């Protein structure tokens, strides 16, 4: 175990503070993107039958199954400077390699499958008849979604967000390919371990674990079931 003095001096380091903040911020940004784009996707996958659905489900699950450096390489290949999407991004002054945008992009790839799968199973547990009953009472599709479906799937969304954030905050393999700098906490831990040894990396690891724990406890508290009479 690292000593208290070492822990305090480590957290006072600007590099450590920045790396931890960067990890937290990029993971939350990736989760936000997963919520915005993943929720409608999960709804469609849970409620609709269409040709090619299995392929889309397979693509959603793919990042869970492949080694994460491969995701980094795939993102670089897709958004590299010589590719059409890469050129388009360059035109809009968006840089993937060695940037926060790049880090968030790979974190979306690695975290979103956990969010989509969790929310999809949440939608599947809501009886379709509740939505039909709402429509029969005069509510349109949008109103039904916000008044009936969303409140019932809320806990699954929070659970999915916790899983997505957890996966994103701990990501190393894909991030190190796309952006060694600016450094996220896992990359900093790796660098300190290889350059200075276990003792120096332990303190950063301790703070990353503590911050992650506090974040997940608060997310769990937010999503806990209300006691109903």
């Amino acid at each position: 175990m690292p000593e208290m003095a070492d822990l305090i001096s480590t957290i006072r380091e600007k590099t450590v503070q920045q790396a931890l903040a960067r990890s937290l911020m990029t993971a939350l940004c990736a989760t936000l993107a997963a919520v915005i784009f993943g929720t409608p996707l999960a709804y469609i996958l849970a409620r609709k039958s269409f040709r090619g659905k299995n392929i889309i489900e397979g693509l959603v699950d793919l990042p869970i199954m492949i080694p994460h450096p491969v995701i980094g390489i795939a993102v670089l290949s897709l958004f590299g400077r010589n590719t059409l999407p890469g050129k388009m991004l360059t035109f809009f002054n968006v840089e993937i390699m060695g940037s926060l945008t790049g880090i968030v992009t790979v974190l979306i790839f690695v975290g979103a499958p956990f969010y989509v799968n969790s929310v999809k199973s949440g939608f599947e547990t809501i009886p379709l008849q509740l939505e039909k009953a709402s429509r029969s009472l005069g509510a349109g599709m949008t109103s039904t979604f916000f008044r009936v479906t969303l409140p019932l799937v809320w806990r699954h969304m929070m659970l999915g967000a916790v899983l997505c954030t957890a996966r994103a905050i701990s990501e190393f393999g894909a991030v190190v390919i796309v952006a060694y700098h600016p450094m996220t906490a896992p990359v900093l831990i790796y660098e300190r371990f290889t350059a200075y040894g276990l003792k120096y990396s332990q303190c950063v690891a301790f703070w990353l674990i503590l911050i992650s724990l506090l974040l997940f406890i608060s997310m769990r508290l937010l999503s806990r079931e209300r006691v109903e009479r």
Partner: protein
Amino acid sequence: MINLNDVCLTLPGFSLKNICLSIPSNDFFAILGPTGSGKSLLLEAIMGLMPITSGIVSIDNKNINTLPPEKRNMGIVYQDFALFPHMTVKQNIVYGVRYHALPRAGTAKRFDQLVDQMELSRLLNRYPKTLSGGEKQRVALARALILNPGILLLDEPLSALDPMLQDDLKNLLKRLHHEFSSTFVMVSHSFSDVLFLAKNGAIIRNGTIEQTGTIKNLFEKPNSAFTARFTGMKNIYVRPASTPALAPLFRQNGNLPRWQDRHMALRPESILHDNPGPENTCCAMEGVVTRLISRGFFYDVIIKMDTVELTAQWSRHDVLTKQIKPGRRIPFFIPFNSIHTF
């Protein structure tokens, strides 16, 4: 008046085929059929919750095919109630009010009236998961009726309730239909449920309408072996006139029943063990009891005459006092007017 003109709805593995129905305004109409026959699907097609493939659904001669469900002025009450679990009883009941241009004072009065009628006042702040089946059903009814729908669709409203609650709900539905003067369309798989409630009905089988008419007519004059069986006629015979054991039924009464018909059907309760009275109104017959099947307060008595088996339904008291047992030869009587041929 609801009209369904040649309505078809195709789903993977099942379809409603060429449905033609006319449901008069303010009627209590029953759609009857066995499980999986497409009755609930038909209800959802009327409501607009399932898009029809072809045909026309109209109300008072106005085509409503393209009208979304929320604009059809219909309410639906599902078999499993479909109450919103995250809302209290009160929130459930008033859920739809904001979508309808209803006068505030009128709605409040209606809310009070419904809460009173359905005996929901002590449940208003409770959540659905804490309610019994009967309470849930009353909440679901109040939720639909507060919007004063022109048509109320009831999807098997009795099947999730125990027998005692079923009787209470039947009385409630009858009273509500009378008081709210809306068209009630009820789906059921049980003919006995609708006998008390509905005036007209249709029998559906494998996605097609088998027979429509008054409930009395469906009950007494089925036009197919399926309808006859569904309405509880346990004794159905093909080509009865050429069956020697049944010949007396045709010989003794001239043209009635019609001998040329392909089927004869007879309700089990129409077979009597005592001669009911005037001569020439009944056919006296004799047979051997082969089995007794207890149904609680009554017995199904299976009687064999040559190659034909008849099922009679007699009270437990009669079976015990008259010592009707398997192996005994007994006389019985069939009133000519209870024989239905088609």
